[in-house]
């Protein structure tokens, strides 16, 4: 019998990693204690986007919109039009692909304070292309007015929620759900909307990373330290607007620059950084760590992260190969 790895392994947390349960839901519920205008909506994915925590804490401020993503986002816009501050959750594939016209015209064009929360961003499920939002950033970066945040861990999510509510405009949050790794509390870090943060310095390589890939970048940097390879990590939680000053400063040395993202190579952080460097005339040695421009396979998440180059092992190997 061949040993089989189950496709039910759906967590990207390492087996021994510290995690926090449903950080988005708890952060939103806590914020709503202080801000009565906060409301929550979901499209039949309340439990699966950690919105159930908010629903249980504030049942009169939760609105179930049914499996209807167009009216989910249209109604969120309508609520913002009358002065409420909605957080609307669904999966990232539905928010970006299925209901894009509603996100664009109902929410972004009028500049409304709505946070669209997309679960299962990039490759965070083994369910195959129907659920893998590998191109949500590519779709949404082109949307004027829209602020886009890809948090690394539970700390980032907890701090991003109030910042997004305070931001008087439309935002898209890539959601990490369930048992979410807790990493950034070990660093001198606070989430600031629109700001990148250097989590560690290093002379040989700078990893410009976003989302869960910042966690992998930190792990890779720690592993390479043992080999005397000095790797810096610049965490870019806000994809748009991009903190170009921080990126240009990080890339303006003779270090190898690698962007790391849980997203296709097309239209995400890598291309945003690449165009930033090219337009500024910075000729850094530059590469992308990202998902291939393909519809991805189904399977167990650790297997898929290894296959498509997002695992820590794969990232370490990639850095070594680039430096060889």
């Amino acid at each position: 019998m061949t040993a089989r790895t189950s496709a039910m392994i759906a967590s990207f947390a390492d087996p021994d990693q510290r995690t926090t349960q449903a950080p988005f839901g708890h952060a939103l519920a806590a914020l709503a204690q202080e801000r009565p205008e906060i409301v929550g909506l979901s499209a039949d994915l309340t439990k699966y986007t950690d919105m159930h925590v908010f629903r249980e804490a504030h049942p009169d401020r939760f609105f179930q919109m049914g499996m209807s993503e167009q009216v989910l986002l249209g109604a969120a816009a309508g609520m913002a039009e009358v002065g409420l501050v909605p957080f609307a959750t669904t999966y990232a594939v539905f928010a970006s692909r299925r209901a894009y016209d509603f996100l664009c015209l109902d929410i972004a064009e009028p500049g409304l304070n709505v946070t669209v929360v997309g679960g299962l961003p990039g490759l965070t499920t083994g369910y195959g292309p129907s659920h893998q939002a590998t191109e949500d950033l590519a779709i949404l970066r082109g949307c004027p007015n829209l602020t886009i945040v890809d948090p690394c861990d539970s700390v980032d999510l907890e701090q991003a929620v109030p910042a997004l509510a305070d931001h008087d405009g439309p935002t898209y949050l890539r959601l990490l759900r369930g048992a979410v790794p807790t990493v950034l509390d070990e660093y001198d870090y606070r989430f600031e909307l629109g700001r990148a943060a250097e989590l560690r310095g290093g002379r040989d390589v700078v990893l410009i990373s976003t989302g869960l890939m910042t966690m992998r970048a930190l792990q890779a940097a720690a592993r390479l330290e043992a080999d005397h390879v000095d790797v810096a990590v610049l965490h870019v939680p806000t994809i748009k607007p991009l903190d170009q000053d921080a990126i240009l400063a990080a890339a303006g040395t003779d270090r190898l620059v690698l962007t790391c993202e849980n997203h296709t190579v097309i239209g995400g952080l890598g291309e945003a950084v690449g165009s930033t460097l090219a337009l500024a005339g910075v000729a850094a040695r530059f590469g992308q760590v990202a998902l291939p421009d393909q519809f991805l396979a189904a399977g167990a998440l650790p297997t898929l992260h290894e296959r498509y180059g997002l695992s820590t092992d794969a990232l370490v190997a990639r850095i070594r190969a680039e430096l060889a």
Partner: protein
Amino acid sequence: MTTAPVSERVARLRASAHRIRGYALDMGEVQGQGYIGQALGVADVLAVLFGEVLRFRPDELDWPGRDRFLLSVGHYAIAAYAAFAEAGIVGVEELETYGSDGSRLPMSAMASYTPGMEISGGSLGHGLGVATGMALGLRHQGNPARVVNLLSDGELNEGSTWEAAMACAHHGLDNVLAVVDVNALQADGPTVGIQGMDPLPEKWRAFGWRARRVDGHDIAALLAALDELTAAPSAPSILLCDTRPGHGVPMLEQREKSHFLRVEADEWQSARDQLSAGGAG
């Protein structure tokens, strides 16, 4: 609703609809073409909505207690501007800027351009979803304002309209009134050949709405239906109004039915003469 005798209300609203048609012709002549047919067709409906149904303050357009009028058919902007002028929301003299560079009255309705325009229309099937959220929000806030969404029958092709219809019914949004201009005409031709949608009232009732269907040029019938639908609503309500594009100007009403009407420069005065000859009846 006012308590004046119905005959007085009807006469007043007929005169109002006549002025709305005149304003639409004036704007149409500025551009030489446009959605004139729809504007003439929906004028009676708009006269009744702005004259008797909608609660608003022309001098305080952001009054929180106002009824929200959502024009999801953005190409009906010309009709809405005519109604806005009639309602004192924009000045009649401003209508001559319609569709010109720098005007507050663009050819497709946009909230950021025009006073009183609550949403930007144009991409059809958006209005009722936004109305759903506004109605949920207003009810949550204890605000008795209503949300009135003007749709076209073509817009009922859009699946998002039916998502919103289900959501309004599920949430018991009796503060939503949808008004549909059933002009039986879409961009590619008559609605019946594009996407048959009858029986409309039965469809909406099956979706949990209170529905009435009336002749959209019969002001007394419009008033009676709206009186009934808004008196003691117990569910979202919809008024389906059968209209004829170009109504009130025979030379345009009789023209081959067209979504986008082109009128020659020398025809505008004839159109205005025909409207005047028809009077306010």
